[in-house]
């Protein structure tokens, strides 16, 4: 198959376009990485060839971890993402299960409402929500974002899980019902364990979305001690017109690692979840 001519054709047809897309997609991350290990003398010297590092240093990372609250922001981000994801999976399941398995009046209306809420972007709600959070005295608490992130994540999880639940065959549940198990028992002991892959997909997405969220965190969290990574990086590492590019890029890179790591372990689940909504429809 792979003759000299065939190989050349293969390279032109496959690796030329794919290589181009890879280069464009990855260059910003490469630039982030090498900026974070360049000394300032190299960063701000226009006579040095910029694409490689001449004298690598970890100074920016040391500064980031010792002179800013980056570790605290990371902790806040993780805590918020984990709790919001857990809440959203539970509430999402409580919506998706009846919609996937029960027959009752109003089911299709509820399903449509959930789909519609899932599509409501945050900028439509942030001003009233800011006022509500204020009145509840929740400003500058992690509770404010733990409460508001599930407003996007619950409909999302419910929608994704609904599709997954419908694809699980009913026979096992029917058998359990005939054996005298109650609805709750059937759901807990037979059905939910079968749906683990669906929970993983929904969980990864919810976690990624929580890590990515910026607008609510920017508005609700204005004290350094409660900030999440994206807001901390933007609000505190960019100071007026003075940029600390080495530190900024170190923060951007470290802040991306948790998501990238989880994503790399579950990439198949992620792609399945990504395409579930559109391809099956």
């Amino acid at each position, binding site marked *: 198959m792979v003759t000299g001519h065939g190989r050349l054709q293969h390279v032109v047809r496959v690796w030329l376009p794919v290589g181009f897309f890879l280069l464009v*997609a990855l260059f910003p991350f490469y630039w982030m990485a090498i900026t974070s290990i360049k000394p300032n003398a190299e960063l701000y010297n226009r006579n040095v060839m910029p694409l490689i590092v001449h004298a690598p240093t970890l100074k920016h990372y040391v500064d980031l971890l010792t002179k800013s609250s980056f570790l605290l922001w990371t902790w806040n981000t993780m805590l918020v993402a984990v709790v919001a994801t857990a809440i959203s999976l539970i509430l999402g399941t*409580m919506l998706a299960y009846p919609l996937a398995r029960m027959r009752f009046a109003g089911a299709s209306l509820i399903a449509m409402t959930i789909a519609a809420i899932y*599509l409501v972007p945050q900028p439509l709600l942030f001003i009233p929500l800011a006022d*509500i959070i204020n009145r509840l005295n929740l400003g500058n608490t992690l509770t404010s974002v733990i409460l508001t992130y599930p407003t996007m994540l619950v409909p999302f999880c419910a929608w994704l899980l609904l599709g997954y639940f419908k694809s699980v065959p009913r026979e096992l549940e029917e058998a359990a019902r005939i054996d005298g198990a109650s609805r709750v028992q059937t759901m807990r002991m037979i059905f939910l364990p079968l749906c683990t892959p669906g929970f993983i997909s929904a969980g990864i997405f919810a976690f990624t979305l929580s890590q990515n969220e910026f607008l609510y965190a920017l508005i609700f969290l204005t004290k350094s001690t409660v900030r999440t*990574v994206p807001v901390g990086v933007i609000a505190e590492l960019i100071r007026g017109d003075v940029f600390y590019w080495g530190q900024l890029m170190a923060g*951007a890179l470290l802040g991306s690692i948790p998501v990238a790591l989880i994503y790399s372990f579950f990439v198949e689940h992620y792609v399945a979840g990504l395409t579930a909504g559109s391809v099956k429809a």
Partner: protein
Amino acid sequence: MTIASDRLPVLAQAARRRVPLAVLLDRQGVFSWLMMALPLAFLAALVGYPFFYGILLSLQDRPVARAGTFVGLKNFLTDLHDPIFWQVAINTFVYTGVATLLKMVGGLGLALAMNQHFRMKNLVRALLLLPFIVPTVLSTVAWLWMLDPAFSVVNRLMVALGWPKPGPSWLGDPTLAMVSIIIINTWRGLPFYGITLLAGLQTVPQELYEAAAIDGAGGWHRFRFITLPLLRPIILIVTLFSVIFTFADFQLVYVLTHGGPQNATNLFATYAFDLAMGAGQLGLGASVALAMLPALALLIVALTIYMRRD
């Protein structure tokens, strides 16, 4: 069978002895509504209520930390006479339209390139999705640095290739700033299109292509008359989806330009933010945010109906 019939009276007895709640719970309707009550209450409190409260706010003169006074449609009239508002509206439509077109065409290209046999395909696919999964704010900061007025790596490469010094002022020039945010939005969103369309391409039956090839159809015709029609539903859903979130984009612009220079990149979301959080006029800000509603509602209803057809 004997065992089952032996057990029947026992089961019936057990059922009679159960508390009525358990019997009720066995009804599908009761079980469903009980289970959905908590999540529905949650969504009503934190999505439904804020939505209507937002409408109420838009009808008030409401400075931060003071009670509002009802002013009717005054905020919306102010918007209509505000040249920045109109600029913001045009910006938002240009940004959404051009970025969507680029993502659609580029994403289709990416999907077609990826829909070939080659080694390490899964690794390549995983790497290509990185721009989409990394938190937007963090990758946008990297772009901010890549387009820095003094040390832009893009400009240094362009100058090295013969472009006159110092190269374009990406975020300082009004037109180029719009070009920049469109390119970066495309960079981030294109993998979403590409990978979703790739999944769609993989469901196209090979026999169709083979039959068409036998009938003498060339590459372009096979693409035009087999691939494209079969992909249309997916393209439509992905596009509607991405249009909604591009139209209401906030983070990218906030980080890159704050809406500047001279409002050249200000979008509905960033302008509403400036008015409400910067100037402290919650009512006016809410009216600008609500100006997105007609277009968004149309898109959301269209997509919801389309997804339901499943």
